[in-house]
């Protein structure tokens, strides 16, 4: 396994897009983790004489309507984004993994039932469902995560099911079965390692989507509690005061674009490396 990882990382290091992606992601993670150390100001401190300040040596990305330092708030927002993103991806990934393998291995009727279940979940337009559910649940990160999990695990389920199904009938699995390998051995030694490739590609692609949903919900006022410096809240403040300052919108959108760019490139680089058949040719 360590040999495999070594070569994978080695191969990624030779792909300029992958390197760029990893640099972006690493920078964002470092900034989110060490937000308190890097931030020039307390993200709640109001500088009432410097409201709507443009970027300057004093306030790198300007200030908002309450005179709070935008850069410090975006750093804090990175924490929220990563927390929500990672938690939601792990939970929906695990649910999808289990349900997908059940669908792939189970009897035909169960497979069909689960497929129908996945299709039904995908029929909900994400943000509209988020609005509908958020109104019924208390406002907060937990609600955001629940909504995101509901709307994204079906995708994992489908991918894992397809992969499992194609492996189930492959010759080496049939040979293992014929030799009397236990169900557990087949699942953990053969199916799981082969499912993980596409699974991680999907996870890398899905993470920025999740982060965007969180920002979107916070923008709409159904995400994080008021006062929490999510990227979406910063954008919302910018939208409310678009005629006073363009800087809140400009700097609030940037980290979202960077996150998406970084993880999309990473996902593509992973796909190129793990699954050459899907190579896009770029």
């Amino acid at each position, binding site marked *: 396994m360590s040999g495999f990882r070594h070569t994978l990382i080695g191969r990624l290091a030779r792909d300029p897009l992958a390197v760029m992606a990893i640099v972006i992601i690493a920078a964002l993670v470092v900034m989110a983790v060490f937000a308190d150390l890097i931030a020039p100001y307390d993200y709640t401190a109001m500088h009432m004489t410097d409201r709507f300040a443009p970027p300057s040596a004093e306030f790198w990305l300007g200030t908002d309507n309450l005179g709070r330092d935008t850069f410090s708030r975006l750093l804090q927002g990175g924490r929220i984004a990563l927390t929500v993103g990672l938690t939601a991806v792990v939970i929906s990934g695990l649910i999808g993994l289990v349900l997908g393998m059940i669908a792939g291995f189970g009897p035909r009727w169960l497979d069909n039932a689960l497929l129908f279940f996945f299709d039904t979940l995908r029929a909900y337009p994400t943000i509209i469902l988020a609005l509908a559910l958020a109104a019924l649940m208390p406002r907060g990160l937990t609600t955001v995560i629940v909504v995101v999990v509901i709307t994204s695990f079906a995708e994992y389920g489908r991918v894992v099911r397809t992969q499992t199904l194609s492996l189930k009938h492959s010759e080496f699995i049939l040979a293992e079965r014929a030799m009397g390998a236990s169900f557990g051995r087949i699942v953990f030694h053969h199916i799981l390692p082969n499912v993980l490739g596409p699974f991680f590609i999907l996870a890398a692609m899905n993470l920025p989507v999740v982060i965007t949903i969180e920002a979107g919900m916070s923008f*709409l006022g159904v995400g994080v509690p008021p006062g929490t410096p999510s990227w979406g809240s910063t954008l919302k403040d910018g939208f409310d005061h678009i005629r006073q300052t363009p800087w809140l919108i400009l700097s609030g959108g940037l980290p979202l674009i960077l996150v998406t760019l970084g993880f999309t490139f990473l996902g593509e680089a992973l796909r190129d490396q793990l699954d050459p058949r899907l190579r896009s040719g770029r």
Partner: protein
Amino acid sequence: MIQYTLQRVALALGIVFVAISALYGVMIALPGDPTSVLLGPRATPEMRALFREQMGLDDPLVVQILNFWGRVLSGDLGTDFFRNRSVATAVMNALPHTVALVFGAIFWSATLGILLGAFSADRRNSLLDRVTGVISVAFIAAPSFVVALYSLLLFAVTLRWFPSIGAGEPGDLLSRIQHLVLPSLAIGLAWVGYVARIVRASMLEAMGESYIRTARAFGLPRRRVVYNYALRVAILPAVQVLGVGIGGMLSSAVFAEIVFSRPGIGTLIYTSVSDRNYPVVMGAMLVAIGFFVTCALIADLINAALDPRHRKTQ
């Protein structure tokens, strides 16, 4: 083909039925008094009583859900107690705006996406191809509500090329279209990237096919083979992706409508959620999901119709 169509329609109906029933069930079964959960603190006791009676809240859950569908099938989506109108009216007033927005977005993504994709497949590995590749990813990477905000800021507030608020004067087509340009582009931009990439990839695949070589061997000009033969096959997956993409576009439409202060399903749901006006939320959800599933179904059927291989195998 007929059997295939019937199968797809049945599946689509099943999905809408289960999706809406589940949502309705969750809504009713939530802990607490449904009338206060669903109507919020502003509701008067009379409104609560009327609501309780209309919805048959004392019946078992399954009966309530079936009754709900009975009402829906007779065209009754419930009552907007706060504004004293039927939910169906509210939704039907909003729907055309959202449909126009989504189809505007599809227009952008189909035209720009297919053009970019076809050009870059035709000139593979050229500068144009590489630039298109990067632009496509950048488009995909830009979240639609950030694009909406940025384009509002740049084109409407700073440059003032396009109006920033509303859906335009009723009856004035030009004004309507002017108001549609920015929001539909904001929604469609990401899909321009997707479509360009899919068209490029499937065109390159098609150009490796044997029948393309046949056409070239019979002296058909390269241009004609690329744009007439390969593109025709390559558009099929793009249609499918756009059909499924309408779900995502509906989500983006919520932001576009709010950012550009347009009327529509998104705005309706958003204000109803803020007002705790749940009957309207429910009705609008039903219509939004129905619209999405219908579009995905139509895309599927168009695909089957355009691809003669489908007719026999299905």
